[in-house]
């Protein structure tokens, strides 16, 4: 029998023992799943449960004492606070307009991209770029470019004869929210484009060829091949996008804040103001939980009514 130590250097034998030690099932679980579970508990589950607990208390930022008030916070916002209900309506309008723009523009761009044309790599790099640009930076840039006195957007539109004179885009209470939604779409349409484009590329080209030979025209090919294939991904993207846009905070906060005559005080901005301007943290926690329950219920209904099927499975 050969002595292992003479064949293998000691360090290697030690390394092998380490590998074997790490290969035990318990160790594998320990260094793969455990960190994620711990981290998840610490930074997601715990704060969320903390918020739920806080929502039953009266808490002020500079007072460490929590005063138990039971359901009072919830009752107040559900029944006595018209601002909260109005902010919900504003959030829903913002989400609806945003998602409509994203889906229409995003799908159209994905369909354009699905053709072959020169400089395709460059063009797709440009079209996917907005998604990586920080939303806050977009906000600052837009504040500059849409400025009412020297903004390039205003002057271009005036020079082209589309507008008579420059305007303060974010100053009109009737339109401010929708202008913000449009600006935000400059970035977030790309979410739809990327997801739809990935799906389009996976449709076998034989399907189109066969349909063409069978005599289907372009519209029929689109209706009978492209659309059914996109159904799943569009269901998913509408769900995700609606949730994100319903809770969109940064771009609105940067461009208009609560807006001219509170016209852009959507519910997350209201929650933020309650938390950090009125320093009523318990109330803000109650609003957060309410919002999450409302949106969660909406998402579940969407799931069960439309059954977006296998596209959304977690595995």
């Amino acid at each position, binding site marked *: 029998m050969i002595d292992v130590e003479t064949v293998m250097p000691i360090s290697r034998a030690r390394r092998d023992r380490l590998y074997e030690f790490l290969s035990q099932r318990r160790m594998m679980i320990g260094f*793969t*799943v455990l960190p994620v579970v711990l981290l998840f508990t610490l930074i997601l*589950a715990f704060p969320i449960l903390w918020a739920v607990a806080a929502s039953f208390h009266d808490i002020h930022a500079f007072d460490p004492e929590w005063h138990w008030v039971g359901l009072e916070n919830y009752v107040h916002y559900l029944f006595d606070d018209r601002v909260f209900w109005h902010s919900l309506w504003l959030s829903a309008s913002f989400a609806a307009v945003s998602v409509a723009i994203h889906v229409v523009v995003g799908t159209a761009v994905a369909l354009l991209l699905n053709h072959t044309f020169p400089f395709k790599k460059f063009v797709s790099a440009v079209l*996917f*770029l907005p998604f990586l640009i*920080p939303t*806050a930076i977009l906000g600052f840039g837009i504040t500059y470019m849409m400025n009412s006195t020297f903004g*390039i957007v205003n002057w271009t539109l005036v020079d082209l004869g589309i507008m008579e004179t420059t305007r303060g885009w974010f100053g009109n209470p009737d339109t401010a929210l929708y202008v913000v939604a449009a600006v935000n779409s400059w970035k977030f349409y790309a979410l739809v484009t990327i997801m739809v484009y*990935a799906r389009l590329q996976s449709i076998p080209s034989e399907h189109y060829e066969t349909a063409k030979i069978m005599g289907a025209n372009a519209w029929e090919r689109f209706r009978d091949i492209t659309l059914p294939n996109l159904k799943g991904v569009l269901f998913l993207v509408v769900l995700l996008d609606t949730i994100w846009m319903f809770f969109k905070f940064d771009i609105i906060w940067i461009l208009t804040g609560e807006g001219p005559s509170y016209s852009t005080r959507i519910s997350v901005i209201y929650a933020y103001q309650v938390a950090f301007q009125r320093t009523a943290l318990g109330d803000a*926690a109650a609003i957060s939980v309410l919002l999450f329950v409302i949106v969660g219920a909406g998402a579940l209904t969407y799931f069960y009514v439309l059954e977006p099927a296998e596209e959304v499975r977690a595995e």
Partner: protein
Amino acid sequence: MSHEVDREGPGHGADREGPSHEVDREEATIMDYRGSIPVWRHLRYRHRRLIRRSILYVGIAFVTLLILLPVLWMLTSAVRPVGDVITRNPSLVPSTVTVEHFADLFFDSRFPIYLRNTVIVTAGVVLLSTTCATLGGYGLTRIDVPYKRTFARGVLFTYMFPPILLAIPMYILWSNIGMINTHLGLILAITARVLPFSLWLMWKFFLNVPYSLEESAQMAGATRFQAFKDIALPIAKPGIIAVAILAFAFAWGDYTMALVLMTDLDMFVITTGIEASFFAGGQIDWGLVLAGCAVALIPPLLFVYFLQKYYVHGMSAGGAP
């Protein structure tokens, strides 16, 4: 039926009362067709192709310019002299190029502090979330852990929990344990935003890597750990890169979490810092704002150019910073 109407074949859809039908059907040619042909079909293939192509090109050029021009405008405005930044009729290409805003930005403002904070936080988030997501994704696909499906669904569900609503409880919790205004506090907060999606992405990625590769390595004498380290990890590289870019994009562009959790001006990141320092007091210093934005735009531009396929792979599963 509708499929056949547009074909150029003889006979279909022809006006049955027309005189041409006295011609023997066997000898009918395209010239005898008297039905209505759409104008489009009268054009030669070459012309139809030309029209189709030009519509496509115009559409693509339009969208591309719509995206490209604002970015270019921000970048070029950052190198314009002060007088040109807020002028009514600027030239598209700056007449004079100056770096004075960048000099001010780096030597005469708090921007370097903000940049340092952002870099520390971004590095932390990328390391923490990429490591945890890769290991966790591997463990959840390869090892039979109890309740793993429930766990994965729970993780995905928290992905819907919006940043601002997560920031409020975190503020309450962090201020109780003294983690407000620390890099670690912000790193953990942003990781909470990134982790659910990255874990999901890595989970899906490892599902597509055949386990048989690792099994055959183990047959050949490798330990389970070696099979993970030398087989699974290298194959998962594209997924890991996608997850890392995603984490970078979240952390680099974060505004909401930093706004809530960093209250000391020395702990601000670039996004909140630009707003706090250069927008302050009604007097906006546009030169500095634009220079700061230009710096913040460098990584996205590099990523989209060099790592496009990884990033698109990550985003196509639904990640949104």
